[in-house]
């Protein structure tokens, strides 16, 4: 047994056992409340820069199925669980969680009181931290934790987004997806609906995008503070009104910024698969998958041509916006799910309907 520690900037230490790669890493410590779907979490590029604590204690039960990955690699900076399964069993599993993390060189910590960590983060907000299997000296770890750069000071998108454009063929509408660290399921959801998806890097200019003659444009999810992507925000400004636009997560925040709204950092974010979101147009409530640490400030929408389309029933934060006149809408959560409920996939259909309407 190799000891391992998670040290938070406020001075708390959580001792456990190393179960994956050895080493030391740093990041923003966040918790996720999904009871299933850890492979989706591990490979979701939006977690870049973060050490993820899973609140469900048994993780790794059904092993690793590559088909459920949301990107080609694992982006978390560390993975903290109560009980990593040593003997997974599922007909699709090809390896254990531990083996996978080792391959991805991600430090894993098991046997810790993850509920205690969660309560601390809930009460005091997300914190910077160090996960280590090496130098476990508390003084050293705390010094180091306090020196960790803030998430908002980091440029993370370039670490996760594609460098070169590529196309996923389809027979229907052509959708350009501005990749800020897109989950593969966004592409799958579009593709399943017949769309040809042209994935472009975040730096792609508005002219370059329009030159692709898209029927619609999507702005994907991605890691970090939306204020750190001013170029993309500028690009979006130029695209608004030209083509139907649909934003998800970071894409939602960037659209809001491009339309003149403001974003802010949530105390401890929303990360899980059980958030109730109300569609204000219909009054219907959907259970949705979330992964965001920032949100659009509702008061900043006053006087803009945007209306709030969705709110979170737990804390009443903005979960979706819609332009009052133009074919532009976005949601803060993940209609592509993976992991999480598929209840909101209908938003992709609405996007395609919007495209169809605009095409007429």
């Amino acid at each position, binding site marked *: 047994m190799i000891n391992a520690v998670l040290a938070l900037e406020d001075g708390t230490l*959580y001792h456990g056992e190393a179960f994956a790669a050895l080493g030391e890493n740093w990041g923003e410590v966040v*918790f996720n*409340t*999904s*009871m*299933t*779907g850890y*492979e*989706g979490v591990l490979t979701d590029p939006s977690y870049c820069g973060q050490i993820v604590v899973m*609140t*469900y*204690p*048994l993780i790794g*039960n*059904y092993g690793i*199925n590559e088909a*459920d990955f949301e990107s080609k690699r694992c982006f978390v900076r560390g993975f903290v669980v*109560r*009980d990593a*399964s*040593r*003997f*997974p*069993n*599922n*007909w*699709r599993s090809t390896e254990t969680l531990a083996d996978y993390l080792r391959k991805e060189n991600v430090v894993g910590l098991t046997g810790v*009181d*993850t*509920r*205690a960590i*969660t*309560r601390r983060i*809930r009460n005091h907000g997300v914190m910077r931290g160090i996960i280590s299997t090496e130098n476990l000296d508390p003084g050293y770890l705390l010094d180091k934790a306090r020196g960790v750069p803030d998430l908002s000071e980091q440029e993370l998108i370039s670490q996760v987004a594609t460098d070169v454009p590529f196309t996923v063929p389809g027979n229907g509408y052509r959708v350009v997806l501005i990749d800020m660290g897109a989950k593969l399921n966004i592409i799958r959801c579009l593709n399943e609906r017949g769309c040809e998806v042209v994935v472009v890097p975040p730096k792609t200019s508005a002219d370059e995008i329009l030159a692709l003659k898209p029927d619609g444009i999507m702005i994907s999810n991605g890691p970090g503070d939306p204020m750190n992507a001013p170029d993309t925000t500028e690009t979006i400004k130029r695209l608004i009104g030209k083509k139907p636009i649909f934003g998800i997560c970071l894409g939602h925040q960037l659209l809001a910024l491009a339309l003149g709204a403001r974003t802010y950092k949530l105390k401890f974010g929303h990360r*899980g*698969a*059980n*958030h*109730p979101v*109300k569609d204000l147009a219909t*009054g*219907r*409530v959907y*259970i949705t998958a979330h992964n965001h640490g920032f949100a659009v400030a509702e008061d900043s929408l006053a006087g803009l041509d945007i209306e709030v389309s969705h709110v979170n*029933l*737990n804390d009443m934060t903005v979960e979706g916006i819609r332009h009052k006149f133009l074919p532009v809408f976005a949601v803060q959560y993940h209609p592509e*799910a*993976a*992991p*999480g*409920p*598929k*209840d909101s996939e209908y938003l992709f259909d609405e996007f395609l309907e919007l495209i169809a309407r605009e095409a007429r």
Partner: protein
Amino acid sequence: MPRDTSLKKVMVIGSGPIIIGQAAEFDYAGTQACRALREEGLEVVLINSNPATIMTDANMADRVYIEPLTPEFVSRVIAQERPDGLLPTLGGQTGLNLAKQVAESGILEKYGVRLLGTPLETIRRAEDREEFKNLLSRINEPVPESVIVSNVEDALAFAREIGFPVVVRPAYTLGGTGGGIAYNERELAETASRGIKHSIINQILVERCVIGWKEIEYEVMRDGADNCITVCNMENIDPMGIHTGDSIVVAPVQTLSDKEHQMLRSAALKIIRALGVEGGCNVQFALDPESFQYYVIEVNPRVSRSSALASKATGYPIAKVAAKIAIGLNLDEIKNAVTGKTYACFEPTIDYVVTKFPRWPFDKFASANRFLGTQMKSTGEVMAIGRTLEASLLKAVRSLEIGASGLYLPEVSGLSDDQLAGKLRRADDQRLFAVAEAIRRGWTFEQINELSAIDKFFLAKIKNIVDLEKEISVGGLAGLTPEFLRKTKRAGFSDAEIARLAGASERAVRELRARHAIRPVYKMVDTCAAEFEAVTPYYYSAYEDADEVETGERKRVVVLGSGPIRIGQGIEFDYCSVHSVWALRQQGYEAVIINCNPETVSTDFDTADRLYFEPLVAEDVLNILHRERPDGVVVQFGGQTAINLAGAVHEAGFEILGTSVADIDRAEDRERFDKLLGELDIPRPPGGTGYSVDDALTIARRIGFPVLVRPSYVLGGRAMEIVYNEHDLLNYMASAVKVTPEHPVLVDKYLIGKELEVDAVSDGETVVIPGIMEHVERAGVHSGDSIAVLPPQHLDEQVKAQMVEYTVRLARALNVKGLVNIQYVLHNGGLYVLEVNPRSSRTVPYLSKITGVPMVNLATRVILGTKLTDLGFKTGLVKETPLIGVKAPVFSFAKLLDVDVALGPEMKSTGEVMGVAEDYASALYKASVAAGYGVPHKGTALVTVADKDKDDAVAIVHSLLKLGFEIYATDGTATMLEQDGIEVKRVRKLGQGSPNIIDLIMGNKIHLIINTLTRGKAPERDGFRIRRAAVEMGVPCFTSLDTANVVLDVMTAIKTGYDKPPVPLQEYVGPEDTGARNSE
């Protein structure tokens, strides 16, 4: 939509008596629903025949009718109360079936009553197999190939086509009554015939058997605006093939990836949308362990056992929310009572593992068929919460109170490899222990999975436990370093199990733990995995870092609950525990409860100030007491479970409130009790304590046969028997008990006579006796299985006075503070004490309700120090009210194969009903109807009685003839009846050729059976087979002539039905009556 304001008065149907397949979960659900409705300002009318429930308390609904759950009585209450709406989905299958019947008979329409919640049409679509199949195929959800038949031949034809095994499911039954898996034509013919008989529409479904597939359940909710959520999903460790009520179940699902989970979740939501459920619903799936292929197995469009479990597992109050949906509210308009901030429209996420383990009655029914299949056999269940699966599972096992401190059972470890393989292949109640044993023997996961189909993931978890077992055994006590000891505790091992493995005493392990400060912390159940601050004080233990308990400033008292529902310890004790908690809170104390039963009101999150969902075993209880540091502990309301913990609690230095441990022991220890009775000059049947077989025989010879023998500390008359001669006594000693100096047997003279019972409240000086109960069946039939009448109808004042006098004398001598239950027998005019139980009893709720004396409330105040005189009570019998209450037992024999239904000193009933009326005959009539004794008014009666009963039988046969029955009898009985000039038809006994008695019963030719027990209980006897055949075919069968007598009397008296207006509980006593009606 806000709540429907056109509703002013709503009627709720309860689920009636506790039977296998329909237990305390509906008391919990009904209680929650009634409160939710009243919270919304509605007037609530309740009908339920079960007096032992919280829901039938005067403060739960505005008008509580303890009346039979039949269309006739429901209609009568509707006519009297004129409710605006009827809520049928909270009373289990009983409630649903009744609602359907009154709706179809036009009663609802006639009185303008709207059916609330899930529409009737939806219920029909979900329950009628054909409609259900059609609906699912319309929405492309797969169901196993099946056919609906109403005769055996069609069932066989289908099975020949798709191949065996097949599953048989009767339409509209609960707990799978009459169903089963058939592996060949003979089995199918048998099961099909039984199933057709049990279905109220004489239909069965025969379907492809997906035995061995994963069995997954989703608890889902939908509101009138089409918002849908899943509350919880659950995975059966025992895969398809075993009724989910008999399966070990974990929540959440453990072995499904998100893709599989979302696939089934989406399917569940699609199904409730298509059905149009408004409220809670349970959807069961079978999932191929090797692909994405699945089948929808069953949908229950109502609250259920699973929804109670899901509620307790997550903290989400399904019944409460379902009730609010039924009156028009939407999920996003209902507050999440757990967080106080968020709404009911979300999906709980949990950060622990929940294990549900069924509690079977096989300890009581030694001869029962223990195999598990599609017919549910457990009477109750426990739930355990842990941060790992291992810890959760081990907690569940020790919560069962079956003598297992871990996954080891001596009788399983003694099996041969072949026997072990057999147990893995064909599951019984010990299968989990067999899995552990197989792992101990080094069998591979492949082998075990091949035999049992249990997922290897679970096998690996069990192996983790077995590996640690070995490590503890090898290291012994010396090997228990602080680090290793902590590791075993984190894995969920109990001190007792560690001690057993290390060859040490439990005390040594406990002390070692104390020395190294290895103590659990308590974590909160909050529906949200700590994401939001929660206000529910609902805790479980874990050996981790952070403790979350916040104790208040006030004085606090811990109440020990009663654990799983089992025969002999039912819902009554939960009723008492809950009332004690309420009384404590009313008196300004912080009330803390410990219990492990997910079906009950006591484990609802807002019953106590703090709830610990923990095993009721010494270690876990003491840990909580160390954490809570209470001012006192109450042990007298949680049945024998709590009483058994009194010693350990006392020894650990905590104060037991109420009757002291020494005095409890004085009542329970045979020799000390005999001495006390001698001092008090109160007679009891002669007898003694046998420490060996020879001892027992000596005593029996001295006092003379027949004698009543039983082990010392007993629960519900377990292993108790009346024996008539030395041979039977030796037989009993060899088979039923293991006599040791630590566990002696009690041998008492069996006195034939009238059995009487009292419950009293005492503060040590004042002894208040709310009432005397008279049993219909003479002593020898367990009091829990007897029909009890209050006040007594055939007792002279002198005997009553003597009972009061004895009771007062005993209560004072034992310094009883709180409740005491005393049983007497009136033998040849002399009154004898049979037993004294210095605790609450089974009859307390019934007695409290009829007399209006709030017994548990008084008892709780007494143990806190209040004097009964200060509450207006005086010593003696409380003045009787004009009402007569008859309590009748209800049995679950249809669910338990190979159990003898004959009544005796061992308790067999699972529940009870009450009939209330102003005259005895009417009260008895109602009790008989409510208990489902369902005796036909004419037809053919089979009479076959033992020699000793023949005189009594003649009178009964005369009554039967008067009613117009034709009498069939076997030779001996026929001869005897003919001597009395009664004309009978002789029928063949077994072995006398065909058609014999059994053929006649199976052929539906017999409508009533009167059969008394001949000596010896061996199942091959004719009597046993007659009684079993009766159960199988649903023919009423009386094994006590006393019961037969009164039931026939009632039928003669009330031939044409019953037409007096029902009286609500609120009017049993006057509005100002506190129960303190002292009769001078």
